[in-house]
């Protein structure tokens, strides 16, 4: 089954000041598939992820060359509304970062900031998002309790619900389970499998096994370059590139 390209990098270079952190990246992220970005620390995978919704713009002295495309439209241009881009391309971070508010308000926050005032719509959207994040049954009786009282795994799924509430088209996940225990990790991985029915997902992970379990495509980055991208099954059974082979088998990195 062919999946159309949702996002793409075309000859993408990225600089932190004078340091070139990404070099000539060409990568297509297919729609409603999970693309895993792997590679040793400092290889540029998280930098690349943050290029997709221009989170790097928040860091002074950074710049991009080449193009990042969303549905074929270049998004790394000054005239583009970054807030709107980030609504379409949501993000979940390594450490769960719920706001010091109620569970309900955490999920409703983005909607309210976006100017939504219809209380019924907000309520239904919060419930829908919590269901999508696999959290609703666990919190439905305490929606107005503080989100800070949830476990780490629940907090991370709340953050996913918060991202999903804005109905993004793409979800970026930067090591979303690295701070979680195995059971909570398993729930996040199951959730990713569910979410890809409706969302395009790009995930950075340091866990080879996690990349193998959750992704359809795997891209291996090394020293700012994209070394190899292909179906996850091929990357983990017979990678074409020796560097990929050496990395996934733990011979370096």
């Amino acid at each position, binding site marked *: 089954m062919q999946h159309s390209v949702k996002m793409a990098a075309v000859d993408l270079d990225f600089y932190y000041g004078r340091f070139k952190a990404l070099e000539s990246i060409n990568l297509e992220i297919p729609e409603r598939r999970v693309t895993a970005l792997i590679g040793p620390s400092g290889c540029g995978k998280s930098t690349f992820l943050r290029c997709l919704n221009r989170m790097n713009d928040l860091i002074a002295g950074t710049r991009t060359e080449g193009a990042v495309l969303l549905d074929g439209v270049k998004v790394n241009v000054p005239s583009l509304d970054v807030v709107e881009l980030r609504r379409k391309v949501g993000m979940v971070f390594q450490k769960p970062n719920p706001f010091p508010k109620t569970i309900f308000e955490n999920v409703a926050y983005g909607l309210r900031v976006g100017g939504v005032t219809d209380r019924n719509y907000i309520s239904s959207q919060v419930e829908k998002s919590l269901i999508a994040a696999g959290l609703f049954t666990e919190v439905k009786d305490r929606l107005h309790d503080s989100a800070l009282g949830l476990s780490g795994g629940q907090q991370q799924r709340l953050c996913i619900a918060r991202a999903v509430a804005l109905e993004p088209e793409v979800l970026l996940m930067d090591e979303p389970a690295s701070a979680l225990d195995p059971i909570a990790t398993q729930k996040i991985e199951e959730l990713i499998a569910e979410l890809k029915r409706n969302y395009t997902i790009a995930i950075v992970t*340091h866990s080879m096994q996690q990349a193998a379990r959750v992704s359809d495509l795997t891209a291996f980055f090394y020293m700012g370059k994209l070394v190899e991208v292909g179906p996850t099954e091929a990357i983990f059974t017979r990678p074409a590139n020796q560097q990929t082979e050496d990395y996934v088998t733990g*011979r370096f990195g």
Partner: protein
Amino acid sequence: MESRAHFHAELDALKGRVIALSVLVETARQGAVAAYRQNDQTLARQIIEGDKAINQQACDIDEACLKLLALEQPVALDLRRIVGYARAVINLERLGDEAVNIAEGALVGAGLPGDCDGALMELSDHVAGMLALASRSFVEDDVDAAMDVCRLDERARELAVAAMRCITEALSRCQAAPEDGVRAILACRSFERMAGHAANLGEILVFIVKGVILSQKCQPR
């Protein structure tokens, strides 16, 4: 990611055990052929008895493969190596069984009918060459040697057909006792199966090193 030096040392050790098993199997094959040719019943019994050690080692290696799969969750070359070694020991264990079959022929007084000695020994020598090449391919991760083993299987079939034709013709001309003819045909079949297992070993080595699964006639599937 963290270095997996300990795991890779275990993989190297696993390879060493597979090669050691192949040496045991080769010793059994040589002994079985010698027992058959020389009607040496003592040697034949040793080969049959020695198969227990081959079976035990095959089981041990199989368990070691299972353990590494479960605990180390290998990928790519490491995964192919473990899966490949698990498949290889099945073939090595069966090679040992064929050596036993030949030795059992010697035990019941196998003789070579008519003038088929040359045909059967040509087949035996060809199989010996295939197994030596297969072992070398495993020791050196040599894909070219492995492909050669795979290709030599066709010649083994031709030699087996020629040897069997010689035996059946000798039987039809009443130049051989029926018991000897049947035993010789069974030995022929054992050599042919040995060639098949050697070819499998070649295919497995190609899978390990290249990740390519070969089908019939040594072509990528």
